[in-house]
């Protein structure tokens, strides 16, 4: 009796195994047959503020364009509202979508270094955008703006415009590496001139904070020749504070990023906001383009791709103006 039972159990096992094997084969075959299909996962922060809103917009645009250009490319975009959620997204992209390449704009460098490395270890082509990981050599391709250069270009413009002397105030962003690099570049550019930084305060890349900090600067300093706002959201707050104090004629403001409202002002030749310095959210599109190139082109793309931070002037503003973008 016991032996009979054993035989039946093992037979059931065998049937199950065969069934399972058949399922795997059935699922596996179509994948093999369509091996040239390229799946790309894009993981970006949710649109919680202007700049990331721009990232989302340009990612969607690039997805549409690339998918219609290359029918065998399929792109999945997932947005996360915190680093933990983004780490989960990365796992899902690998396990559920079986991606061939990942384009990731990490929420924060530290917490996402390890999740991205695990994606890399599963044999996926990895492109990192904007915020570098804490360990070198994980990503195949790195696409980023240049914060140091943004500071330098802004500093050089202010130095030139003021003929090397004058009193300025600086509104900084959220205390981070990005902010430090920008300020460092700026300080290097004005070094050796007679430009005097009256004070720097953090305005957290936020309009309301920009407005309030600038109000206080205006109350405190009788003469301000220029304002480096570093960011276009801050710049919009600064503009209103200056208008309120009716001191538009004594100074000019330099922002940064390339928000459409500010670029529109530059295009119109606004005296208060004569220029802007680019730090484009559209860099996500650059990263997606290059990642697709890795699969469809014979030209190598592996390496680092650092975008410039050109000065946007009334002459060239039009090429940086995206009226449909939310940013």
């Amino acid at each position, binding site marked *: 009796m016991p032996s009979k039972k054993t035989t039946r159990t093992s037979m059931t096992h065998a049937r199950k195994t065969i069934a399972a094997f058949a399922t795997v084969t059935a699922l596996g075959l179509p994948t093999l047959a369509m091996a040239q299909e390229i799946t790309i996962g894009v993981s970006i922060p*949710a*649109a*919680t*503020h*202007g700049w*990331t*809103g*721009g990232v*989302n*917009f340009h990612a969607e645009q690039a997805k549409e364009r690339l998918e219609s250009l290359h029918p065998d490319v399929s792109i999945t975009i997932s947005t996360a509202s915190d680093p933990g959620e983004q780490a989960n997204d990365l796992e899902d992209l690998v396990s559920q979508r079986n991606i061939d390449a990942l384009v990731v704009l990490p929420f924060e460098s530290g917490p996402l270094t390890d999740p991205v490395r695990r994606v890399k270890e599963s044999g996926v082509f990895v492109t990192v955008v904007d915020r570098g990981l804490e360990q070198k050599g994980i990503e195949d391709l790195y696409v980023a703006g240049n914060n140091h250069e943004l500071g330098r270009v802004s500093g050089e413009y202010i130095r030139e415009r003021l003929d090397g002397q004058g009193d300025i105030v600086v509104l*900084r962003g959220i*205390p981070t590496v990005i902010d430090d690099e920008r300020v460092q570049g700026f300080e290097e550019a004005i070094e050796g001139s007679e430009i005097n930084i009256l*004070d*720097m*305060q*953090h305005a957290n890349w*936020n*309009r*309301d904070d920009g*407005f*309030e*900090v600038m*109000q*206080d*600067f*205006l*109350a*405190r300093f009788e003469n301000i020749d220029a304002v480096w706002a570093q960011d276009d*959201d801050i710049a*919009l*707050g600064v503009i*209103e504070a200056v208008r*309120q*104090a009716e001191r538009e004629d004594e100074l000019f403001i330099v922002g940064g990023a390339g928000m459409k*409202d500010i670029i529109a002002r530059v295009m119109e030749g606004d005296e208060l906001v004569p220029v802007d310095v680019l730090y484009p959210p559209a860099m996500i599109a650059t990263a997606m383009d290059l990642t697709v190139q890795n699969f469809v082109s014979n030209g190598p793309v592996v390496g680092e791709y650092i975008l410039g931070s050109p000065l946007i002037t009334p002459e060239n503003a039009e090429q940086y103006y995206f009226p449909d*973008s*939310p*940013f």
Partner: protein
Amino acid sequence: MNSVVPDNKPVARSHASIDLKAWGPFFALLALAVLGVLINPAFLGLDNLSNMLTRSAFIGIIAIGATFVITAGGLDLSVGSMAAFIAGVMIILMNSLVEQFGPGLTTILLGIGASLLLGLCAGFINGMVTTKGRIEAFIVTLGTMGIYRSLVTYLADGGTLSLDWGVRDIYRPVYYGSLMGIPIPVIVFLLVAVAGYILLNYTRFGRYCFAIGSNEKVAEYSAIHVDRIKTMTYMLQGVCVALATIIYVPRLGSASGATGVLWELEAIAAVIIGGTVLKGGHGRIWGTVIGAIMLTMIGNILNLTDAISNYLNGTVQGIIIIVAVYLQRASWRKSAP
């Protein structure tokens, strides 16, 4: 019924201690102002003072509403997101009305009306879900906080909603204008404070708030419609948020997902600095007003000096808030056996 309603009239029980309690926040404010002058004489400049008071109007008006909610034993964490959401809807509405009515007074009045209605409805939802749904206010308003924040981000498509320039020029004086030298937001703040003071201290509604906050069960047994009164405090809070938004929108003419972040905590802090008890049962409107001004003043003073590293702003703010409340509670303990 009167037996359960605590005597909340500002009648002195023992002169010295009552004075210390009531005037505690005021003295703290004065001390802070002296510090401000010592750090930078520009602090006393007329422009600076008016900037500061105008700025404190947003948090102040919201905090007056919060005083009612907290006094009645509730809590509203959704006010910052609610302000952003109302601002967003207001901007979209006014932009679309421009086509029909032009950038005139009608457009702005309709925008303001919609704002008040939205605030009232949002407060009603918070109140009803809290009371009828029997869910803690913390959870309900944490939920609505997330909902409004994501709704405004959705409306703005992740970017920023900007008010039509024509409307903006006409609407601008509501923030930047002044009446007899007093900025309009400050006047609104003052009116809301006076109305709040009367409502909390001299009406049945106010007394019910105290009673419910002290002991909800006893209030219920005393035939007070606890659910209705509590819902009304949330609606009042909603209207206050709408009023604050109405004077906020003309300042920068925009709303985004970053608008009003952390306002809820600032409003609650202003209420507590002012001497209202977080667990309910005791509220003080003028204290709240001073608390709101004090919070703005700390930021203002920090902007007027470069003696303190910018990275430490939060530390200074935190210490001042804790010390201010400690001083008050210390005198409170002496007076109450």
